[in-house]
């Protein structure tokens, strides 16, 4: 996999779409916070804090987009494993529609500016 470490601007941009990214990860399979953070870091988002992902997970749980299961872990307290529920899937679809809209408009702007 291509490793690419992003700068401050990309980190700022990432914040706006982090919720969608996390839901997309969870649409593949259930995961706990640390796994999600590790995946993001592995993708080059090295500045992403575990706490930021954790706060986001708390929020999507409160909004009813995920189901949560407490799974015993070998070390430390039980882990909260998050999985996307029906409401979460609908929300994710909406996210992708908005994403496509945004990308299309930005591409036009980009092309127009050349």
């Amino acid at each position, binding site marked *: 996999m291509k490793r690419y470490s992003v700068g401050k601007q990309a980190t700022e941009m990432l914040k706006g779409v982090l919720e969608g990214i996390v839901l997309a990860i969870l649409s593949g399979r259930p995961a706990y*916070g*640390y796994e999600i*953070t590790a995946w993001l870091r592995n993708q080059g988002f090295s*500045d*992403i*804090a*575990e*706490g*930021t992902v*954790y*706060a*986001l997970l*708390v*929020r999507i749980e*409160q909004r009813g987009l995920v189901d949560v299961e407490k799974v015993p*872990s070998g*070390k*430390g*307290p039980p*882990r*909260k494993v998050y999985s996307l529920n029906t409401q979460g899937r609908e929300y994710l679809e909406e996210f992708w529609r908005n994403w496509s809209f945004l990308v299309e408009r930005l591409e036009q702007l980009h092309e127009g500016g050349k």
Partner: protein
Amino acid sequence: MSDAEKGGFIAKVIGPKRRWREYKARVRQLPPNYRTAVDAIERYLMQFVPNDGDSNASMFEDLADLFEQAAADGTPIREIVGEDPVEFVEAFVQNYSEGGYVPTRERKRLTDAIARAEEERLR
């Protein structure tokens, strides 16, 4: 300051005393540097205006969850809170009963005043 001295304040601001004591006990079990970080975050969280005890108790319990798990995983403090701890705490606090520096009634006052100002133009 002992829990007894802070009793009235805690009961009002952080919610049930028992949950607060349990949270404090969990924090004491953390490795020293994690405890230092949680104490600092706790102090900062106290600056926000809480508006319901249960929600605030949940906030501190979730904070303890995060640090207990991170300590078990051996995640360095910097990777938990990020380059900008203020940003992390502010994103975190937003999840609990509209956590903010400003009392809810003041936010409502601003929202209502702007709505009235808008209506004035239409008249």
